[in-house]
């Protein structure tokens, strides 16, 4: 009776040009196109694939945030998840929300739903934390297979090929476990209109962090957000002698 929880995060679309707010408190999100975090798409695809191979019974898509995140859950349902859970977080709590709070929520949900696997994206493209999976595993005292580029379920164990600096590492961990998806794990399917329509029948449960006994207090405060420094224009020279002269003048040689 194995159940998989998949985390999906609603982030600013990967193709959008990010702009910093004039007061440097964050980035502009109003009216900006949002979509599912690409690594979360890969996580959903892996979970749905496992279900199609009949290795697991049910895939539950989970997202934390305001009402808009239900769009992201719907996309996950259209990709093949069975049902969704929307953990409602809004306002200041949502702005301050980070890996610590999310991992507490996931740990509580994993126990409540009796999940055998939690699959998350390795990181979100907005904050690039790469912490939620690891923290969730630590809170649950479960083994973790992070940066997964290949996942194989073998009885009560999972074989994970991990992308690490300098190559690939293969590990075998017991279930229940937390996995985080890397780019080459799979090719996510597209949520086409017919799939979206079919997914409308699927249920999304609604709850608050307090229902799970999680406090959303943040220990991190964002002080300032700046754009990266603009790259200075290069200088073109005509001859090799000019180049040497310029380098000498610059103090490089």
């Amino acid at each position, binding site marked *: 009776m194995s159940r998989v929880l998949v985390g999906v995060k609603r982030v600013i679309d*990967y*193709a959008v040009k990010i702009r910093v707010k004039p007061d440097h408190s964050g980035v502009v999100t109003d009216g900006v196109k949002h979509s599912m975090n*690409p690594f979360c798409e890969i996580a959903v695809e892996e979970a749905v694939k496992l279900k199609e191979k009949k290795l697991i019974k049910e895939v539950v898509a989970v997202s934390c945030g305001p009402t808009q995140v239900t*769009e992201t859950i*719907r996309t996950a349902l259209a990709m093949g998840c069975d049902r969704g859970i929307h953990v409602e977080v809004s306002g200041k709590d949502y702005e301050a929300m980070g890996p610590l709070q999310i991992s507490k929520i996931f740990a509580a949900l994993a126990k409540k739903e009796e999940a055998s696997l939690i699959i998350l994206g390795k990181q979100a*493209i907005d904050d690039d934390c790469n912490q939620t999976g690891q923290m969730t595993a630590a809170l649950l005292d479960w083994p973790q297979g992070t940066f997964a580029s290949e996942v194989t379920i073998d009885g009560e164990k999972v074989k994970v090929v991990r992308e690490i600096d300098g190559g690939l590492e293969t590990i075998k961990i017991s279930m229940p476990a937390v996995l985080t998806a890397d*780019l080459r794990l799979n*090719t*996510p399917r*597209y949520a*086409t*209109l*017919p799939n*979206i329509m079919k997914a409308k029948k699927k249920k999304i449960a609604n709850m608050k962090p307090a229902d799970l006994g999680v406090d959303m207090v943040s220990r991190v405060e964002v002080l300032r957000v700046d754009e990266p420094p603009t790259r200075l224009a290069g200088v073109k020279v005509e001859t090799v002698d000019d180049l040497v002269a310029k380098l000498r003048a610059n103090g490089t040689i």
Partner: protein
Amino acid sequence: MCFSTESHLCAVQLSLAFGTMAYPLRSEVVRLYKNLLYLGQEYPKGAGYFRDRLKSAFLKNKDVKDPEMIKQMIARGEFVIKELEALYYLRKYRTMKKRYYEPEE
């Protein structure tokens, strides 16, 4: 529905353009149009650009009556759907690879 009202109106206009008289495969054609329109929302050159070209491509063939020809055109449309999905995936994959991974030696 994550479909703009404008896109929906467009689909309705097109259904009317196809004529109220039933012709073979009408519902399949309209379904294909709606699916393509939805997919076009993510088109790199803009949803409007895609919609205009999609609309004129369909209207160009509105007087075709032969069911075999219509089936062929629908198949072509399905192929375009697959091409678009591949385009979107490759674009996303390549951007992610460039952003997050060291260039291969």
